[in-house]
């Protein structure tokens, strides 16, 4: 009995030790991310003239440069303005859709960026590398063609249900390891706890898996600066379906 107790205690300590190790590695992650970012940006640092612009002008230049760069593209792009708290869908400089940001939360990484660093990171639109969503980009319902007019008459025409029923949540993984998470706000009457929990859990599980792998391989732990936004659910759906898979995203911080 005594041996069993000692073994259980040892096991407990080992588990706690492993978890502490994971936590320390996770806490170290931003440091290695920033170091990597610095190395990546070292080349652009040479552009001393632009980076020496007064802060207010450089901030404006960042916005204008990125919008102009996005207007060169033929597809719809997303512009996120955290200062004005609005999300815009744009194509060729034309604003197609505008929606207010109801809630926003961003990683501390963004708060530490200087205006010059923001210029380096955001003067060109970021590109969506992949996404993860609770809804599909294109949802098709399949209908078998009727054999004759009798069968066609029997077929009831599908009247689509346009009421909000499913929670809309998605993450856009952008270059530079940045990601944007958009959640559609639904009325309280619609059950959304479990879908949200599942979506969130999936992300945490994936993160833990990557973290453990990097710890085992003795590599820097992953860090993805995230911007989380809550907007109207219908708008969230429209934006997700409008922006192409490899679309452009402008971040205006």
């Amino acid at each position: 009995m005594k041996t069993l107790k000692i073994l259980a205690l040892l096991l407990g300590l080992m588990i706690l030790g492993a978890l502490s190790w994971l936590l320390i590695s996770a806490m170290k992650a931003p440091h290695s991310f920033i170091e990597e970012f610095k190395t990546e940006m070292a080349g652009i640092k040479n552009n001393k003239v632009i980076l020496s612009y007064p802060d207010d002008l450089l901030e404006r230049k960042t916005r204008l440069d990125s919008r102009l760069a996005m207007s060169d593209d033929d597809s719809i792009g997303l512009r996120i303005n955290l200062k004005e708290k609005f999300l815009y869908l744009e194509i060729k400089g034309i604003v197609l859709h505008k929606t207010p940001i109801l809630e926003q939360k961003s990683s501390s990484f963004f708060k530490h960026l200087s205006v010059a660093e923001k210029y380096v990171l955001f003067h060109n639109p970021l590109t969506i590398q992949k996404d993860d969503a609770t809804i599909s980009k294109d949802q098709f319902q399949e209908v078998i063609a009727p054999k004759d007019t009798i069968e066609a008459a029997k077929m009831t025409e599908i009247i689509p249900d346009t009421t909000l029923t499913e929670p809309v949540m998605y993450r856009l993984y952008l270059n530079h390891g940045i990601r944007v998470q958009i959640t559609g706000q639904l009325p309280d009457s619609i059950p959304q706890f479990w879908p949200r929990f599942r979506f969130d859990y999936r992300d945490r599980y994936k993160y833990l898996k990557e973290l453990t792998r990097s710890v085992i391989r003795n590599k820097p732990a992953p860090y993805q600066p995230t911007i989380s936004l809550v907007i109207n659910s219908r708008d969230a759906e429209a934006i997700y379906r409008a922006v192409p898979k490899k679309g452009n995203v402008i971040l205006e911080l």
Partner: protein
Amino acid sequence: MTEREFLADSVEPVQPAGSGQPPKPLKSLGRRILGWLATFIGVILFFTFCLYLLFVVIPQGPEIALARGIGKDTSLTITKIAVDSVKVKKEIALLEKKIDKLTTQGPYLIVNTTDNRFYLYSGKELIREGRCSTGKNTRLIAKKRNYEFKTPRGVHTVQSKQKNPVWAKPDWAFIEEGLPIPPPGHESRFDAYTLGDYKLAIGDGYMVHGTLYKRRMGLPVTHGCIRLLDEDLEVVYNTMPIGSKVIIY
């Protein structure tokens, strides 16, 4: 061996009470259950704590570190040089002009397929907005081929305009009704009522047109075309010349 000696060897000596260690008291059943319960609760609490660490604290680790100032130094250590701010202001003003010029000066139509709404603009001015109907996002599975009924997203151009249009029914219109497909040019293919009073062709067979099914306006029920109410269609038709843009998202 005498009888006394034999007895002394074979019988174990009885320890007198009070000498040596006292016998251990037996644990009562209640105390045992309590002990097991405490262990069980302890184990549950330990694993709950571990799960909390795993799924709540550890994923927040990077943010905790940044909040506590670990890795706070993100600066690229740029040594600024003197710049002519008047020149910079001019450059910014030029960029702003460029952005302004991007907005089309003429009329253009924006269609939101999620909300089934349209917005008619002329430059930056909104001329009209209202309900429309767009593609129903279904796939018709027929014997020879499948048809996808979806409104194509992106930028399109008005390629032609027509008053009192006649709809030349494509094959799927017959397949959907369970009718045999007539040969091209057959009179049953032509329908002078379904498209309403006007049509604006935007390429690949897609159109902006009117409808007989006004009750379904605002719902995604079409085969890919954009249906408008008569009054809206008239304004759109009269405002948009050939070559103007129709942006669908």
